[in-house]
Each structure stands twice: as C-alpha cells, then as structure tokens.
C-alpha cells in the first residue's frame, strides 16, 4: 500500500475517532483525548505530505461517495507541501489544545466544538488531496462549515462571537459560490471535472473562459486567504475564535486559499497572460500594506495577529504574481524562485503564526484579556511563554534569525531580478513591489516590537496581567514544538530545498529553484546567496561572547528604580501603551487609516474657562469595511425591508399576483 494512501487514510480514520471521542468522552478527559487525537491526525497528515513531496504520487476514485459526482483524490508534490503544512500545524495545535481547552473555561472544551476540531483538520487535509472539482468543492465547504462551528465555540460568553461568525459565514459562502461558479464553468468548458481532464483540456480554452474562471476563483480563494479587500471576516473570526482554532485557521486554513490559486493558476490552467498576475500582484500589494498598517495600529493582540495574516498572505500573493509574470516573460528559473519564495513563506507563516496565536491564547488564558494596553509585565510572570513568543516575533517581523526573513529574502531576490526585455510595465511594477515588501517589512517590525514590547515587557497595566501565571506544560510543549520548527526553518531552510524543487518542477513552473550545501542557499538563475546558519551562529556567538565577557570582566548589575524625573515613583499608567506606541505611525498614514477622533471637553459649572474633564475617544475602523461593505449591507437591508411590501397579507393582492401571472402566460401564448 502506498505511503500517502496509508497515512492519509489513517488521518481520516483518526479524525472520525476524534469526532466520536469529542462527543462521547466525559468532560474531564475530553480535551486531552481530542487534543491527542488531533495531534495524531496532524502527524498522519504531515507524514502523508512528506511522502508526497518526496515523489510518491497517489490517486484514487471513490464513485460511491458524494452523490452525483463521486470523490476523486489525487496527491502530487504540491498537494504534499500543503498536507505537510496543515499536518504540522495540526500536530502542534493538537498538543497545545490539551492544556488550552482543558483549562480555559467552558467554550473550547464543549462537546460540540471538541468533536468538530479533528474533523476540521481532516477537512483541511482533504482540500489539497482533492482531485476533481466536486471533491475540491466538497472539501472546501466541509472545511468552511467545520471552522464556522469552531468559531462559534465561545458564543455563550461573548456577543461579539455571533457577529464574527455571521461575517465569516456570509463571506466564506460568497467565496464558495464564486469558486463553485468558476470551477464548474471550467469543468463544463473542458468537458470533464477531474483535475487530470482539466489539465489536459486547459490549452484549448478561450481566453475569455480561462480569464473568467481565473477571476472568479481568485476572488473566492483570496477571500479565504484574507486578502484585502476581501478580508473583513478575518480579523473578526480570528479574534473571536478560541486561540487554538485561530491558530489552525490563520496558519493552515488561510493557506488553502493560496493553494487554490497555485493549483488553478499554475497547474490546472498552466499559467496565463500577464494581466492575471499583475492583478494578483496588486491584490497582494494592497493586502500586505493595508494588513500590516491595520495590524500596527491594532490594540487587540489577536486582531493584530489576524491583520498580520492578511499582510503575509499579501506577500505570498506577490510571490505568486512574480512567478506568474516571470513564467509568462520566459524566465522560468526566476519564476521558480518566486514560486518557491511564496510556498516557503506559506510554510514560514504557518510556523510563526501558530506559535504567535498559541502564545496569544496562553496570554488570554492567563490574563483574561486580548487588549495589549492591559497587559505588560508578562516576561517575568510567564518567562517560557515570553521566550517562545519572541521566537515567533522574530519570524513574523522578518528579522534575521527569524524564519520569515528567509522567505522574504527569497521573495526580494525574485523581485530584484530584472528582465532586460521586460517592458515598461515590469520596469515600474518590480520596484514598486520591492518598495511594498520593504515598507511592509518595516511596519511589520513596528507591529511586532509593539506586540512583544508593550504586551510582555515592563510592568503589568491590568489586574489580569498582574495575576498571570505560566501556562501548563502541554501548552508550552505545543508552543515549544512550533518554536523548534520556526528555528529550524530559520537556520537550515536548505533541508526544504529538495521538496520545494519537486513541487516547482511538478508544476512545470521552472527548473528546481533552490540548491546549495548544508548551510548556504543558492538560487537558480540569480547569483545571490545566503547562509542563515552562519548568520545565526555569528550573531548568537558574538552576542553570547560579548555578554559573557562583560559579566566576566565587569561588575554585577544593580537593580535601582528607573529615573522618574524626580516626580515620585513611576506607575504603570505612565508606560507607553500600544495605542501610544503606534500613534506616530497612525499620523503618518492617517489618509489611509482615517481614524475617528472625538474630544469632549466638559466645562466646570462656575466658569466656561475652567475645564472639569476632557474625554478623548479614538476609533480606528476598518476603512475598507466601512466604505465597501457597510453600504452594501445597508442597501441589502433596505431591499429586505422594502420587499416586505410584497407580502402585505392582503389576499386580494396575492390573487392579483396570480392573475397577473396567468395573464402573462396567456399573452405569451398569444404574442409568441
């Protein structure tokens, strides 16, 4: 029996077991059982991914399942890459869940959400494994439904959950519908719905069909991926879901939107004209910038992480766009590098975002708040969590020593490459893309310095933070696993080079893009190299050396109160908050962010010149949502209210409808 088949089958069976366990196991053992099974599902999925990226293909058709269509599974290296990614995330999150769901109140460990968790993972594994349009759509919708139920886990505790879930439900369904239309159109145009048939027939498609399909599907996939302006569900759902679910959604599910674009654009349609990719690039650029700006000014830790997901997806889309453009321009080697950058960034983001969301969950569990302004002082109360979170921050801020840096470096390399025959559009687009990546990276650093510095360091600014205690071992173990993976990806990304080569060559997008010895990463078609291992050794070695020398030669440090300008002891209220930290940035970008501010000055009763109180309120609404979605919702609601006039209750009116219909039918017979 094939390795992919065996492990994937095991994953699905385990998910079933987990679902039953979630329903049947008593509350006391439930989270442990479900967490363990979920982790096992993840491991099985990851194993199948490893088998697939190492070249073992697998295909099967099960006509008896899914009425009217049948299920077709087909696993190739591309699918394997995403199986590996999802499986890895699930394994980590499973371990984390044992402690998290078990100790953080009723919601995440309730019967229903416990049962759905492993099923969600299985549904996500099914998406890349799908080998036909119907199977893909089934998996897609199963995944959406399972995640929707999981987002609802804590609906009893917070009213915001319902609104978040509604946004998510409506937008994910809208995305599903456009993907459905696109893929069904594609299947109808080539006359077959298996991916193999589409691949074979794609060359004969008219540009209208392939372009239309691409637009429809990219809209749906990008919405799932959280790309701006199709993102409003994401900060809500990620923020309101239990943290282990946020981690799964942000790190794994969102990537399946990316998978969809890769599968469709590079595999099924086999590439396309330049305007596709420029459009995708524009989408990516907007997502990256808008996402990171919103993240930078967010004071809610989970909202910050969620918007950062939009940002990272934007970067991935930029990579895909670059790959498409270069492939179209006849530069397959660079295209391969760009594609590898996008895929590697997907994996890196999965790594650090799992870690960060789990970290946020630990903080939420310990302090009871997601508000950065009410945290602080956690580095001494939760040292292990802080250390692990720092690893994630290094990755997310794309700093050297972090894993995000490697993929952004790759992305930049593919963008910096210049095609002598590229034409004016590329001459403009490439530097703009570089600038976007750079600004994104820069603001990303601000964002994560804020998250770590304001959230974890200095003194506690809230009662919850003051009373925080370290997380249980299983949560730390889950986060530790994720941190280890992040560190590995940061230091020796070379180990993934063969897998990425196989994925890229499997997509016919270019020759194997990556190479190099154990330490140095070399690229096909580009002369630059990097050796993350030596950089890490250098920085860590020098820093440790420096610190050790200082300790050996100098005197020990003495703790003293910080300088208070002679104005009495410092209090936590004097610390810089997240809002204050990001304020200059908000000023710089106030044309984009459009903050709403209101200052209320209450005068004293005695005199208008004496001020009794000043109240300052500031809100940073999501502008895209306010400009794009609110009017739509308002309009639809208005239609709904107006439509009530259709059903006034008058039987005469109802009869008149019928008479009108009858007359119309009779007239249709007469006029003809």
């Amino acid at each position, binding site marked *: 029996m094939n390795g992919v088949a065996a492990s994937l089958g095991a994953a699905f069976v385990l998910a079933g077991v987990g679902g039953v366990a979630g329903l049947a196991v008593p509350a006391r053992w439930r989270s442990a059982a479900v967490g363990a099974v979920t982790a096992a599902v993840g491991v099985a999925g990851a194993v199948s991914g490893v088998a697939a990226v190492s070249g073992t293909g697998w295909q099967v058709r099960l006509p008896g399942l899914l009425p009217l269509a049948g299920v077709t599974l087909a696993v190739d290296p591309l699918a394997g890459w995403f199986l590996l990614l999802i499986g890895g995330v699930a394994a980590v999150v499973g371990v984390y869940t044992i402690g998290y769901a078990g100790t953080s109140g009723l919601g995440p460990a309730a019967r229903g959400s416990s049962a759905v968790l492993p099923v969600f993972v299985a549904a996500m594994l099914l998406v890349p494994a799908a080998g036909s349009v119907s199977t893909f759509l089934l998996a897609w919708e199963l995944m959406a439904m399972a995640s929707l139920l999981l987002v609802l886990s804590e609906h009893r505790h917070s009213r915001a959950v319902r609104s978040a879930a509604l946004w998510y439900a409506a937008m994910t369904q809208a995305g599903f519908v456009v993907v459905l239309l696109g893929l069904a159109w594609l299947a109808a145009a080539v006359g077959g719905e298996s991916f193999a048939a589409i691949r074979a027939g794609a060359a004969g498609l008219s540009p209208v069909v392939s372009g239309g399909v691409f637009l429809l599907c990219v809209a749906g996939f990008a919405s799932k991926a959280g790309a701006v302006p199709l993102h409003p569900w994401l900060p809500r759902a990620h923020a309101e879901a239990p943290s282990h679910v946020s981690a799964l959604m942000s790190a794994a599910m969102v990537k399946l939107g990316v998978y969809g674009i890769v599968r469709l654009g590079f595999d099924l349609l086999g590439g396309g004209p330049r305007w596709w990719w420029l459009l995708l690039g524009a989408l990516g650029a907007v997502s990256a910038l808008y996402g990171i700006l919103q993240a930078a000014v967010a004071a809610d830790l989970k909202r910050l992480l969620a918007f950062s997901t939009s940002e990272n997806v934007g970067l991935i889309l930029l990579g895909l766009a670059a790959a498409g453009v270069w492939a179209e321009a006849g530069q397959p080697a660079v295209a391969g590098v760009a594609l590898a950058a996008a895929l590697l960034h997907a994996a890196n983001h999965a790594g650090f975002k799992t870690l960060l969301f789990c970290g946020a969950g630990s903080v939420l569990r310990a302090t009871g708040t997601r508000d950065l302004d009410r945290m602080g002082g956690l580095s001494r109360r939760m040292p292990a969590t802080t250390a692990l979170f720092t690893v994630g921050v290094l990755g997310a801020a794309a700093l050297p020593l972090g894993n995000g840096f490697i993929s952004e470096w790759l992305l930049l390399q593919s963008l910096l490459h210049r095609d002598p025959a590229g034409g004016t559009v590329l001459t403009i687009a490439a530097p703009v893309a570089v600038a976007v990546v750079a600004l994104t990276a820069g603001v990303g650093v601000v964002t994560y310095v804020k998250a770590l510095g304001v959230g974890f360091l200095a003194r506690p600014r809230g009662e919850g933070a003051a009373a925080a205690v370290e997380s249980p071992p299983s949560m730390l173990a889950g986060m530790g696993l994720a941190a280890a993976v992040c560190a590995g990806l940061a230091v020796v990304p070379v180990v993934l080079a063969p897998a990425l080569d196989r994925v890229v060559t499997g997509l016919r997008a270019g020759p194997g893009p990556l190479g190099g010895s154990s330490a140095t990463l070399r690229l096909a078609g580009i002369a630059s190299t990097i050796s993350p291992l030596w950089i890490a050794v250098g920085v860590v070695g020098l820093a440790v050396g420096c610190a050790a020398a200082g300790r050996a030669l100098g005197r020990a440090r003495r703790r003293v109160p910080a300088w208070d300008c002679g104005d009495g002891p410092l209090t936590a209220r004097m610390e810089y908050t997240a809002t204050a930290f990001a304020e200059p940035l908000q000023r710089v970008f106030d044309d984009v962010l459009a903050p709403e501010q209101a200052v209320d000055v209450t005068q004293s009763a005695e005199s208008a010149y004496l001020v009794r109180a000043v109240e300052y309120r500031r809100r940073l609404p999501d502008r895209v949502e306010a400009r794009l979605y609110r009017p739509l919702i308002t309009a639809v609601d208005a239609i709904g209210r107006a439509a009530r006039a259709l059903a006034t209750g008058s039987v005469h009116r109802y*009869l008149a409808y*019928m*008479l009108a219909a009858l*007359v119309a039918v009779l007239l249709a017979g007469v006029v003809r």
Partner: protein
Amino acid sequence: MTDQLLNLACGLFLLTAVGVLWRRELAALITLLTVQGVALAGIAVLLAVDQRHAETAGVALAVGILKIAVLPYLLRRILARVPEARETAPLVNVATSLLAAAALTLLAYAAARPLIDLAPSPTAGAAPVGIAVMLIGFFLAATRRRAISQIVGVLLIDNGIAAVAFLATGGVPLLVELGVSADLLLAVLVLQVLTTRLHAAFGGTDLDDLRELHD
C-alpha cells in the same frame, strides 16, 4: 337547432358572469350563479344530445345537480349565517370591473385559439367563453372584499373551466369529473366552515381585515 341553443346557453353563461361583476347584492350573486349553473348544465345536456353519448349525459346530470342545487344551497346557508347583504366597497369599482371583464374576454378569445383550431366539434368555437368566465371569476375573487363574493369567484372559475372542458372535448372522463365535483363540493364546504369562523373571529367577513399574517 342544437347549435343555436348551445350558442344561447353560452351567451347566458357569459352574461351571468358579467352580471356577477355588476351586481352588489350578495343574494343576487347567488341567483346569478344558479342561473349560470343552469346554463352550464344546458351546455352539457346539449352536447350529450348532440353526441348521443351516455357518459356525457351522466356528467351533465351530476354537474347540474351540483351547480344548480347543492352549491347555491350551501351559499345561501352561509349568507344566512353571515348576514351581510352587499358588496359595499369593491377594490375596483364596477365600471372599471366591467371594462376589465371586456379586456379579459378579448384575451380569452386570443388565448383559446389552439383549442378552437383543434377541437373535433364545431362547438369548440364557444370554448373561449369558458376561459373568459374563468378570468372574470379570477378577477372577481381578486377584487371583491366579502368572503361570499370570493367564493362565488372561485365557483365562477370552476364553471368556466368546466365549460371549456365540455365545449372543447365533450367533457372530461366521468371518473375525473366525479372527482373534480367532489373536490369542489368539499372545498365549498370547507369555505363555508371557514367563513363562519372568520365571522366569529373577526366580526365580519371583510377579507381586507385578514392582514395579521404579513411580513
């Protein structure tokens, strides 16, 4: 001779329908409906005689009993229980109603063309009358406020269709006609009960009062 009688019956049939639109006294509506029943039964009998067809005669008998005796009786009983004499304020006034009836009759003639073209008997030429009566009945039901008026409208529709069936094909099969008649009878019985309940619940049978269920 038969043809002339048939035309006469058809004329009467249409005329009564227009009369129903015209009159406002509910008792008069019932009388007109009875007359229309007579006309319909007449059509059936004439056709049965013309075709010398026993089954059609049986159908004519059943229809006659139902439309001339049973249904008017039921309607009068409703009227007795729900003492409302007049259709005071129809949603569309009488003059407009009559114009609409004219338009509907024209439409009926245009729409019934395939029936006339195809029917085996020359009597089919009168089939549009049935469709016209049906449309008038529809119009009546849609514009009259009293419960009884609406029932009369439903019965007009049924009469119209029955006339079409007779004129175009010499009547649907006996078994089907029996079923249809039974359904009609039961429907009117149901409506009778409901009218009583309406009267009890709403204190009247003005159907415009039925506005509690709406969106």
